[in-house]
């Protein structure tokens, strides 16, 4: 009898986890879910842009070595790409959600463009271009931060 319990418990646990996981992964997205996805994506993009600004400024001051900056900007772009992919993979369920999408999409695009510019400038060792790229990140960061604050 005890041996049977030992066998039944893990099987029941696996079935329960499978069921809950299946339900969560297939349940339709509602407005609340969409808003959460949008805020998470905007926050990830903001983290990437904010870190790139800090690293870019410190690079201009000669405080950070090249390989570290390259690696940090790579990470930032990867995080931004992941956030954009997550956001693009969720369809807006209604009109207000579509409006949210219309606001965030351009912000993510400009973040990608600005990060790409900074990455190129640091790779080429072009100080003026690096400075310009760091400055260009500021309005993007403000836009993303404003989005997160407003919709959190």
């Amino acid at each position: 009898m005890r041996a049977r319990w030992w066998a039944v418990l893990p099987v029941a646990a696996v079935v329960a986890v499978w069921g809950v996981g299946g339900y969560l992964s297939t349940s339709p997205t509602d407005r609340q879910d969409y808003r959460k996805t949008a805020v998470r994506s905007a926050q990830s993009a903001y983290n990437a842009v904010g870190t790139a600004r800090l690293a870019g400024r410190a690079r201009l001051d000669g405080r950070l070595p090249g390989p570290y900056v390259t690696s940090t900007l790579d990470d930032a772009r990867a995080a931004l790409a992941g956030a954009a992919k997550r956001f693009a993979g969720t369809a807006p369920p209604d009109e207000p959600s579509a409006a949210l999408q219309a606001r965030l999409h351009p912000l993510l695009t400009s973040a990608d463009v600005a990060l790409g510019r900074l990455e190129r400038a640091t790779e080429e060792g072009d100080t003026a271009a690096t400075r310009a790229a760091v400055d260009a990140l500021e309005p993007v960061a403000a836009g993303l931060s404003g989005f997160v604050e407003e919709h959190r």
Partner: protein
Amino acid sequence: MKRLLAITLGILTAIGGFVDIGDIVSTSEAGSRFGLAHAWVLVVGVIGICVYAEMAGRVATVSTRPVFDLVRERLGPRVALVNLLGSYLITLMTLAAEIGGVALALQLLSGAPYLLWVPLVALVLWLALWRAKFETLERIFGLGGLTLVVLLVAVLWLHPPVAALRHQAFSLAPPAGENWPTYWFMAIALFASAMTPYEVFFFSSGAVEEGWSARDLVISRVNVFLGFPLGGLLAFGFLATSAIVFQPGGIQVDTLGQAVLPAGLAFGKIGLALLILGVFAATFGAAMETGLSAGYTVAQYLGWSWGKLLRPRQAARFHTVVLVGILLAVAALLTTIDPVQLTEYMLIFSAVVLPLTYLPILVVANDRGYLGDRVNGRLANAFGVVYLIIVVAAAVAAIPLMVMTGMGG
């Protein structure tokens, strides 16, 4: 004089060896989002690992038998098997996370992608565990980990907003924009990062292998009660610098590169290089310990000969388990799973299985059949039971909080 030097070296090694990828990731994330609001969790975690490691060290030293051997004998093979499976899987996840941490540190130093470093790190790790004199390596990496102290100096250098930090540390609540479930999710991750089972397996197995006697209990306690809290202070460096640099700007830390940035901002290239060196040493040291711990748990349960002091030929099955563990860890990393994300999962599942490893040690530490008059005293039992409650509460809450918060998102 020689004994004093050995004790000092032991403490320094324990300090440097305390921090691993779990501490680095969880403290940096928590600091960037919650400031110093989780500082108390770090204190609770450090006291917890002291209680846990002291008991395990005493059990191993007095009984002169490895912990898993005793657990199997005391609780029976079936319960001990559940215990073994939980511990082994978490140790494997930790091993993969540590190897990933070493590779990420090398990426930050070289600019080359971390995935290129993973097989090389694994090869060096295996060779080190197979061929090299372990004590020397342990000392080198433990002492190398001490360069993490640069972050503690950076805390002072970065002009900390003392009043704001003090307020965060004593408010015991999430700041504006964060919620309670995420606060507790982070707290559990931080707690689990301090109370990692592999540290205890490693510590107690080392005591058996090096033939510690009751006379060595004092040294064991000094290592635990001085080394671990001072190691916890190094982990606090990550919490505090993230709280100073990232939290005011609302930037969340989720990469190793971000976690080390404050050292660069404070001290430039040299500060950054020292910190990355410290991260490399801490994670490589932890990878050695987890690799061995994977072998210890399996070999001790099955009654095989085991140990880092035995030649591979004398403990072939033990060394095979270690090698298989390293290969599985590399395979996991080569799926391109993010090592930081892997670490986050490892911490949560570590919290879930912690009672499986903590409770048996508490039971054996109270068994006069094994420990004679060295069983837990009133104080040790008071702490032991309080921590049992905390450990069980964290284990029960970990998965629901993970689902509710979407992994702390």
